[in-house]
């Protein structure tokens, strides 16, 4: 079985955002100081792939990590998990705000390299500029069935089983053939810690790159600006007094909304 994992990385939200602008060429111009890390969705996709390989060491795990700022560090962090093959994915141009263009770029690459994954795992959002459209359109471009928002994966009687929860139900899917699964964050797919010896080994590695070209022009960027402050009226009324009086005031406030049993 071939498992292909696509990882994009996101800016680490524990730090202020690095300088980002729209360049003269109409593309996103990021400074090199970006602290790009795997997103919770990336981590979930990678962990599920590792879990599946744990049980079948003969199965092949290939990972493509999106190029761009800080990509070497990102590649090293993934290399420490020892995938069978790990390469940097350079999208030319890289326009992740355009799910259609980007998904066709990646699909074209997967086809031209005859990667033929039996299971393609990708986070439910691919990087900081995608809001979930890219994985859906990638499934369509590859003519693969899509199982969205996967939370867990395991082997059952030798067959792949994917799990997600919908409302009060959990759903198990046993794909009869190749499938693209988007992965969402879940306690069962928290990324494991790599072995220290593998971390050290990864520091010495160099990485191959593969380029996916675009056919067509992307959606035009007009502006990139700081998100507007959330306008909610604010004016927070801070409660004084001890916890008991604060609790009384909170329940009185909620009761005034008509939502609390008397």
């Amino acid at each position, binding site marked *: 079985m071939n498992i292909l994992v696509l990882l994009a990385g996101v800016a680490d939200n524990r730090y202020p955002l690095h300088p980002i602008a729209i360049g003269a060429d109409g593309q996103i111009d990021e400074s090199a100081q970006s602290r790009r890390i795997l997103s919770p969705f990336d981590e979930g996709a990678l962990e599920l792939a590792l879990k599946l390989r744990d049980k079948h060491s003969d199965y092949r795990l290939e990972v493509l990590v999106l190029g761009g700022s800080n990509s070497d560090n990102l590649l090293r962090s993934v290399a420490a998990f020892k995938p069978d093959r790990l390469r940097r994915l350079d999208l030319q141009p890289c326009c992740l705000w355009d799910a259609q263009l980007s998904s066709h770029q990646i699909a074209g690459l997967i086809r031209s390299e005859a990667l033929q994954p039996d299971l393609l795992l990708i986070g439910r959002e691919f990087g900081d500029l995608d*809001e979930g459209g890219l994985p859906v359109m990638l499934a369509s471009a590859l003519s693969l069935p*899509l199982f969205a928002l996967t939370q867990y994966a395991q082997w059952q009687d030798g067959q792949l089983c994917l799990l997600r929860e919908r409302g009060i139900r*959990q759903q198990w899917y046993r794909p009869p053939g190749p499938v693209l699964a988007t992965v969402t964050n879940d306690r069962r797919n928290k990324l494991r810690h790599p072995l220290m010896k593998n971390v050290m080994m990864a520091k010495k590695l160099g990485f191959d790159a593969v380029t996916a070209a675009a056919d067509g022009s992307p959606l035009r960027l007009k502006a990139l600006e700081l998100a507007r402050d959330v306008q909610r009226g604010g004016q927070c009324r801070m409660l004084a007094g001890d916890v008991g009086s604060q609790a009384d005031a909170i329940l009185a406030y909620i009761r005034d909304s008509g939502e609390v049993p008397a």
Partner: protein
Amino acid sequence: MTMQQRIIAVIPLAWGQEAAEQALAAARQVAHQQSLACAVLALGPAPAAWLTDMAGAAGAVELVYAVHAALSDGENLQALAEAAAQAVDQSGQQLLLLPPGSEGEELGARLAACLSATWLGRCARLDWKADGLEFERACWGGRLTLRLQIETSLAVACLRAGKLQQQPAHANVLEPLIIELGKSLPAMFEIEQSSSGQTLPPVESARIVVSGGRGVNEAGFALLEQLAMKLGGSLGGSLPAVDAGLLPVMRQVGVSGKFVSPDVYLAVGISGTPQHLAGISHDSRIVAINSDPAADIFKVANLGAVADWEQMLPALLERLPA
């Protein structure tokens, strides 16, 4: 409505009235800016009187039911996408708007792929101007806003436009057109289902949401669940809380989770990141409990208490009827 510009709310009937209202609200908002009218394309096994009434009251001028037995399953998104693609008349310029939320976004992207249309994604703002569609999306975890522009004849998008305002003065009595889809639609793949053990109602439709963040541990979430039950509400949480395994991802509130619009959002141990706040309606009143007086949540809350959840949650619970 001119033949050149059509704004169409695409509504799967199986998703219910709230999803329909959200898609209609989005279509009305975009249409209103250009003094256009909006139309409705409903997908289901048969016409539904409630939607005919709702669409008319919202001022829609045209209602088409695309009917097929396979459309009774609201989870069969590929069937819904292919049905919508079959029913859309692609003449002129068209903007198709799906109900916002993760399912609407997935359906929208599938539909755009079926139609080879432009997928605009999860829009925070969307205007149809003389020189094309201009729209905004949150990016970098809600820290930046991206404004894009495109001239296209066929676009698909999700837009969150708040609550649907009925327009009694402009209500229309609609005579729906019914299209019986002849082509076969893909069957839903075989799925085994079992109970997830969840007892509280979905977070996205609750009138009161009790929510916890990384400042609350497992014992605290047990208290939050009790509080949600006593208040007749539901339980939510932030992404770090989900990552820590404190609650399931379907209860995650935020830019990558559910969008909630309760009357009151009780945020306990939540710092108030833009990513989390993006999942809470501007109409909701926020009550914040946090031990850190400098927490950003107090900048947007209506009522705040600087307190430890270990003391505050039992105090709230003991004041409510058993």
